[in-house]
């Protein structure tokens, strides 16, 4: 097998050529003959009763073909939450219906209450303006604390606005309280994990087509998981049989979580296409994206860390309010619970963890998983409170972390938050980070900054996350309504080239390049002869899609399993060709040989024979060479890392500049190091964005104040540094066949606390008694903190 295309090689991405020449096919690039356009009428109040909607004038406008309102979808189902969470008292979470179009009430600015289908987008927009909706505005529920006090309601039947009150691990609650009460030292920190808008650069787009003769639907949509979208539409929302609905997610321009979910616009275009017997397309504009894409984070947290005299961790206790917005998006209940609470032991041997999360409905856009999903929130809380604790007890923050790290001989390690870490070496990561970040040179760099009148700070961080989502049996116990395996079919064609159908979906991750490397390695063929097929439910057996850094660990493992089955079958055919028994066949580097002889047949010859079985013993060998495998992981995977950030702070203006950013990660084995590094870069960009720039601001009436790129601070090229990235310290995952862990979210998880820790360090070095600043650590927030210190 050519060494430049197998596992560990870094071939250039084959998908790049179409993206670089403008020949990619994103959803909005696809147009169908006779297509009509959908435009939505959206609420401009955050909370209101729909008194009436008069569409008469709009329906008479030029080009208008149909108008839908919430009335049209009363009979169909709602878009469900994927996880059922039970409250501490055993009560199931409150789960209000999320309709295709708002009915009775609108619940956030941007909530769609009607849709116009017209010949052109412009005509549809004009007609939306002519819809007369009488919506009586009610006081908005925005602040989570006020929401829980409950005098105004997002959903009339939920009088506390509380979705659930979850405790983890409930049996440890009393012991944790006791440990905190009796501890030598307790550090407490109140913090906000700021609300973010994912902002994939490609806005959402959905287009449906209906074939009346066959009663078949096709939905082209910007999705990270076309099968999940199909399942939700079929099983919960419209009831279209799965075998009558094809969901195609072609090239997708980034997702970061926001395109995991099924959205009402998808159901609307399907219903409209059926009614009109014409293709119907909707493309979001950026303002709609800000108002309606699921947002991320938005936790308000108090965390306490209890320690003994030596600085050994005794307990973490966390109280969190998590905003779920106006409706439950598909993963919204899992994100603040099982993707957050279970990580609250961090990289540490702490014996007790207790987490309480109250999920709160507000009149804001739904909040769901955004790059990292729960794990950034966990890491931020833990790593900020540790930094504060180190300062309080006068211990070096690296030393305090090392003192409490799980050690390499402790794996498998059962964490106090209920997970079993299979592998890792946090000290080795820290060692490497100290080296790559050149901590030895920090004092000199600080002196140089100070000579310019600037403060310099250094922040460190250690993180662990749970990826490779997820073992179906475990998530089933925890409340998931789906299994989280993945699937692949490997089809060896007669002429020897290979198609690999995968349930994962690439929207920037380079699967078309990386997945063939796996098959090439196992079969000893050139990766160029292997093509990936993804993003089309009619071509792929099944799949749960791409999120939670799961594609390689779960779908990659399915590819391995399917390819192994191919080898078993191919050996049978080779044995027949070589006139020996199956057990006498050896397979190496793409060649089958008879043990102890020089008789061989090539992989290509076996493939051809599989499809031209003139002399097959048909009772022993079936023709063809195609195998499918479903892979369900035995455990989560546990990537971990040690990060370092150095910032300069201008004490006059409060401006923070990231001068150095180092990320040392353990991703287990690496298939394509170039792609892995790129994934870390992207995560760092978003993490630094969260730490320094980004915030999502609703005023008290529920208006989103920064719903455009003029107002929402996206990280730009001149805001970010070059990054130093290292993944040389990988410890192989012990339970999947590739030994891989997943790399997509790491940068976004590890960097925010690192940056904030560095800013606090800088301010402290200047004699400012500042122990915490909430993100984004903007010039105003820093300047204010300095003034108040």
């Amino acid at each position: 097998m050519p060494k430049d295309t197998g596992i560990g090689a870094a071939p250039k991405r084959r998908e790049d050529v179409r993206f670089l020449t403008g020949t990619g096919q994103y959803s909005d690039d696809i147009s169908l003959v006779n297509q009509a356009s959908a435009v939505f009428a959206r609420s401009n109040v955050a909370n209101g009763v729909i008194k009436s909607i008069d569409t008469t004038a709009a329906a008479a406008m030029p080009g208008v073909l149909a108008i839908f309102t919430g009335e049209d979808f009363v009979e169909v189902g709602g878009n469900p939450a994927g996880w059922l969470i039970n409250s501490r008292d055993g009560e199931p979470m409150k789960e209000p219906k999320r309709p295709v179009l708002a009915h009775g009430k609108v619940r956030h600015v941007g909530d769609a209450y009607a849709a116009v289908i017209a010949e052109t987008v412009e005509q549809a927009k004009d007609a939306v303006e002519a819809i007369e909706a009488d919506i009586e505005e009610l006081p908005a529920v925005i602040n989570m604390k006020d929401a829980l006090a409950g005098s105004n309601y997002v959903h009339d039947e939920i009088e506390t606005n509380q979705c659930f009150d979850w405790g983890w691990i409930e049996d440890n609650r009393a012991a944790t309280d006791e440990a905190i009460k009796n501890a030598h030292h307790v550090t407490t920190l109140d913090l906000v994990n700021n609300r973010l808008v994912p902002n994939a650069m490609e806005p959402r787009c959905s287009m449906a087509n209906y074939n009346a003769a066959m009663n078949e639907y096709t939905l082209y949509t910007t999705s990270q998981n076309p099968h999940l979208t199909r399942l939700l539409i079929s099983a919960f929302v419209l009831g279209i049989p799965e075998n009558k609905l094809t969901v195609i997610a072609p090239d997708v321009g980034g997702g970061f979580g926001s395109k995991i979910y099924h959205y009402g616009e998808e159901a609307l275009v399907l219903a409209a296409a059926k009614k009109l017997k014409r293709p119907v397309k909707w493309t979001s504009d950026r303002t709609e994206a800000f108002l309606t894409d699921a947002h991320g984070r938005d936790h308000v947290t108090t965390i306490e860390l209890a320690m003994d005299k030596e600085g050994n961790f005794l307990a973490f206790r966390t109280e969190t309010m998590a905003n779920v917005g106006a409706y439950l998006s598909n993963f919204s209940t899992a994100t603040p619970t099982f993707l957050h609470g279970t990580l609250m032991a961090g990289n540490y041997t702490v014996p007790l963890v207790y987490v309480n999360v109250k999920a709160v409905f507000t009149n804001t856009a739904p909040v769901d998983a955004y790059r990292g999903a729960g794990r950034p929130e966990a890491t931020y809380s833990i790593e900020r409170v540790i930094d504060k604790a180190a300062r309080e007890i006068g211990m070096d923050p690296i030393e305090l972390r090392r003192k409490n790290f799980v050690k390499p001989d402790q794996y498998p390690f059962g964490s106090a938050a209920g997970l079993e870490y299979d592998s890792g070496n946090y000290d080795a990561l820290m060692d490497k980070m100290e080296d790559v970040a050149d901590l030895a040179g920090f004092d000199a760099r600080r002196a140089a900054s100070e000579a310019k009148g600037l403060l310099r700070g250094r922040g460190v961080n250690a993180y662990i996350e749970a990826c490779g989502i997820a073992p179906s049996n475990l998530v089933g116990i925890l409340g998931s309504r789906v299994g989280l395996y993945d699937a692949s079919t490997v089809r060896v064609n007669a002429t020897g080239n290979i198609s690999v159908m995968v349930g994962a979906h690439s929207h920037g991750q380079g699967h078309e390049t990386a997945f063939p490397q796996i098959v090439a390695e196992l079969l000893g063929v050139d990766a160029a002869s292997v093509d990936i097929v993804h993003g089309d439910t009619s071509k792929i057996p099944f799949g749960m899609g791409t999120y939670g850094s799961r594609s390689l660990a779960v779908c990659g493992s399915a590819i391995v399993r399917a390819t192994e089955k191919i080898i078993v079958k191919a050996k049978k055919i080779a044995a027949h060709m070589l006139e020996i028994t199956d057990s006498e066949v050896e397979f190496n580097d793409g060649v089958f040989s008879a043990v102890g002889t020089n008789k061989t047949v090539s992989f290509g010859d076996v493939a051809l024979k599989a499809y031209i079985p003139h002399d097959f013993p048909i009772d022993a060998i079936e023709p063809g060479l195609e195998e499918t495998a479903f892979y369900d992981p035995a455990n989560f995977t546990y990537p971990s890392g040690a990060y370092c950030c150095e910032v300069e702070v201008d004490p006059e203006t409060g401006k923070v500049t990231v001068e150095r950013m180092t990320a040392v990660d353990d991703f287990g084995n690496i298939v394509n190091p170039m792609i892995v590094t790129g994934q870390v870069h992207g995560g760092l960009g978003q993490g630094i964005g969260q730490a320094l720039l980004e915030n999502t601001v609703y005023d008290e009436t529920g208006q989103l104040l920064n719903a455009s790129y003029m107002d929402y601070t996206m990280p730009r090229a001149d805001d970010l540094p070059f990054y130093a990235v290292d993944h040389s310290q990988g410890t192989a995952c012990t339970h999947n066949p590739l030994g891989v862990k997943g790399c997509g979210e790491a940068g976004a998880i590890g960097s925010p606390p690192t940056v904030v820790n560095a800013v606090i360090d800088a301010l402290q070095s200047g004699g400012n008694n500042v122990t915490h600043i909430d993100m984004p650590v903007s010039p105003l927030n820093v300047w204010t903190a300095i003034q108040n210190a």
Partner: protein
Amino acid sequence: MTKVTMTVNGKAVSGTVEGRTLLTSFLREDLHLTGTHVGCDTSQCGACVVHVNGKAVKSCTMFAIEADGAEVSTIEGQANEDGSLNAIQAAFQEHHGLQCGFCTPGMVMTAASLLKENPKPTVDEVRNHLEGNLCRCTGYHNIIKAIMAASGQDVSAIAAE
């Protein structure tokens, strides 16, 4: 409706447009040149950058009728005659300067106009020049590196991709 005529990627084209039709829509909807993308509605993201009479412009910020008679080039016209990637495109692939690819056409077109004005930019000049181009995937590291490499400068000091 008004008739417009222009040269796009070296070919004479014409069409009829409304006064409010943006150049982006004309390229995407009428000419089916869908490599030019739309990422925002406030002229901020740069996914729509094309060249009009040799200058980089945001095609979402220009009416099609304003380009009447102009020479327009888009991402579809950037490859070499033989179809191979040009130096900037090749550098983006070589240095992994793209992930989802949505911002990429705008990045390549913006980089081309930068290198025309300033063939050997510094890293800071590249970063400043990309102020109007958003990328959510790459954290910009490899985009900057690719543009530096496309300018023929040594990028070995910039950490590996």
